[in-house]
């Protein structure tokens, strides 16, 4: 009956970014059989490879453990304090303690494995020089090499996990599809680690990979985990024009480091109203909210953005500044695609950059469902309401390692669970039906509709009626899924891949809108036009869970 591929493993890792690769390494070294599912190529998939990046470790450990020239006045406690301050106190204290404690060892390991340290810096929000600069692709390739050295780790490239199979309250594997040949693949596992990153590409303009849509977060939600802090996303100013640069963070970099100005259509440097002292060097959340309001209130440009300008900087000074901007990388130069920056501004808008919340985990990276763990950006708690710069890259090593150990430990004591052939057939049939089509709904049009809705409703500026509209639109799109039609073809069918991602996008947008609607106040990057002050009673984490198909929100005291 079921002509699908069936695989078995001990520890299944979903996602091959930094956290996933690190988890696989730990689980393997504990003796588990490990399989990694990657949407793309190992080491060239996910956000990790795109990071710049600063990797944060307390400056005392930079001296004492890593042997560089740090500042011994710093401490793990001070690093934790800065992390919690940045996170508006919403952070899971236990997770933060584990993070600051283990980050030095994890980063030292990465350097011992061959990662190249380019430089050091004091990143915004840090009291000491904690940023170890390691290029994103070097970071990712170092981990990928360690995975490949462990030749019995099975890496399945081009295989997308679709849903977690839960039996009697336990995660027992996943339904998946190999997009290279269209083959449905069911994997039975003793434990599962979700390390699928953020969901920034539910927005139309993002700094993240185009295929990063929060698949793992939505799968986990459907499986019954609690999602936490889902109303907090970090946006930074990215290009909204031309098409080749959409989401590129050059405008943000120019404001931080080249003294660029930010203008609305009336030629006003509008950040003066929001942060008169720092203006364009204000925090990312303030700039995102201010810019979005300017755009929504009609003071933006034809391409939907406001203007980042360096026109006031002398040309020979600007040329000097751009030397530090990574120079010409692999033959790419933003200035090739932009008009003369000495004459014109870059039209820019808030680009979705980081997902602060996610799957709620404890200090063992356990999600609450037996056999299910989460690590990296898809997990929530460490960063609170606003991630501190540089913390993501060291965090993925810490949580990746912990999740790997936890999952291997669980796998050592459970048998593989048999799977139901009827359920499997019913599951995959829905996806096969997209070819013969009971209707003519266009997956690309629906995807763009969801992305545009996300920008309008759960972007940096929110209000009740728009949040309710978001949920209605997601419900409408979800009802159209059985009527989707894709062209026939099982080998790398992008239209089919887009069709299969709609359910995940709907879940992510709905969960975020529900959490944002529940938080009737403004705090950090969550700004409510209708409740624009912060409310003391709302100093709590909002969790969202799937309660018989309904979104259920709860206010939880901040975890210690």
């Amino acid at each position, binding site marked *: 009956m079921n002509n699908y591929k069936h695989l078995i493993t001990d520890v299944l890792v979903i996602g091959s970014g930094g956290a996933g690769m690190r988890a696989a390494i730990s689980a393997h070294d504990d003796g588990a059989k490990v399989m990694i599912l990657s949407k793309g190529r190992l080491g060239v998939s996910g956000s990790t490879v795109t990071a710049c990046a600063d990797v944060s470790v307390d400056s005392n450990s930079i001296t004492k453990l890593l042997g560089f020239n740090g500042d011994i006045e710093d401490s793990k406690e001070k690093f934790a304090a800065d992390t919690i301050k940045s996170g508006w106190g919403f952070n899971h204290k236990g997770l933060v303690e584990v993070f600051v404690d283990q980050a030095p060892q994890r980063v030292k390991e990465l350097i011992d494995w061959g990662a190249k340290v380019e430089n050091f810096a004091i990143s915004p929000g840090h009291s000491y020089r904690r940023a170890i600069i390691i290029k994103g692709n070097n970071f990712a390739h170092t981990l990928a090499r360690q995975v490949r050295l462990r030749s019995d780790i099975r890496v399945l490239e081009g295989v997308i996990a679709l849903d977690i199979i839960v039996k009697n309250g336990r995660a027992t594997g996943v339904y998946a599809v190999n997009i290279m040949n269209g083959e449905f693949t069911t994997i039975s596992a003793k434990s599962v680690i979700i390390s699928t990153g953020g969901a920034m590409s539910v927005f139309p303009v993002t700094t993240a990979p185009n295929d990063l849509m929060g698949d793992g977060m939505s799968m986990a939600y459907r499986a019954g985990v609690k999602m936490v802090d889902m109303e907090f996303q970090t946006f930074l100013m990215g290009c909204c024009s031309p098409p*080749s640069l959409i989401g590129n963070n050059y405008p943000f970099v120019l404001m931080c480091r080249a003294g660029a100005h930010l203008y609305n259509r009336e030629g006003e440097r509008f950040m003066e109203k929001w942060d008169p002292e720092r203006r364009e060097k204000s925090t990312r959340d303030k700039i995102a909210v201010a810019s979005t309001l300017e755009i929504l209130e009609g003071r933006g440009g034809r391409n939907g953005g406001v203007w980042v300008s360096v026109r006031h900087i002398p040309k020979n000074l600007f040329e000097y500044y751009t030397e530090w901007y990574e120079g010409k990388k*692999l*033959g*790419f130069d*933003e200035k090739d*695609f932009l008009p003369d920056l000495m004459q014109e501004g870059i039209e820019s808008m808030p680009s979705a950059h980081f997902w602060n919340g996610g799957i709620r985990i404890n200090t063992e990276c356990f999600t609450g469902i037996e056999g299910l763990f989460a690590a990296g950006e898809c997990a929530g708690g460490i960063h609170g309401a606003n991630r501190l710069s540089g913390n993501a890259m060291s965090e993925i090593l810490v949580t990746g390692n912990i999740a790997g150990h936890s999952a291997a430990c669980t796998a050592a004591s459970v048998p593989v669970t048999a799977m139901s052939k009827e359920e499997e057939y019913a599951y995959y049939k829905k996806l096969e039906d997209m070819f013969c089509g009971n209707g003519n709904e266009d997956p690309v049009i629906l995807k763009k509709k969801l992305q545009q809705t996300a920008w309008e409703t759960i972007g940096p500026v929110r209000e009740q009626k728009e949040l309710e509209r978001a949920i209605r639109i997601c419900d409408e799109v979800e009802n159209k899924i059985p009527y989707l039609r894709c062209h026939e073809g099982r080998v*790398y069918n992008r239209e089919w891949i887009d069709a299969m991602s709609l359910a995940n996008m709907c879940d992510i947008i709905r969960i975020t809108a529900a959490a944002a609607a529940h938080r009737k106040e403004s705090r950090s990057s969550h700004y409510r036009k209708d409740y624009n002050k912060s409310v003391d009673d709302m100093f709590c984490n909002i969790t969202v869970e799937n309660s018989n198909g309904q979104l259920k929100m709860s206010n939880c005291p901040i975890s210690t």
Partner: protein
Amino acid sequence: MKSNKNVNIKLKRQNQIYDEFEVPFEEGMSILSALQYIYENLDRTIAYPVCLCRMGKCGACIMQVNGKAQLGCAVKLAAGEVYVIETVANKEVIKDLITR
């Protein structure tokens, strides 16, 4: 700024055949943004790499353009020009620009 001119993309498909597409020219477009236009508006069957970094550092969009290995995101297109696109040599082609 849109122009009345197009850009001509010749994409290598199965059996060594090149399909031709006329893409409306827009200042600042790249091969990758042109491929996205083709997929969304002209031919949903084309297979091309997902854009990850948007700034030429991840290498995911490497391809051969007019005989030269380039990043699809780094090649700026000119109005009225022809661009012949295929995978870089020595790679097993799964479909169009997607390799193993």
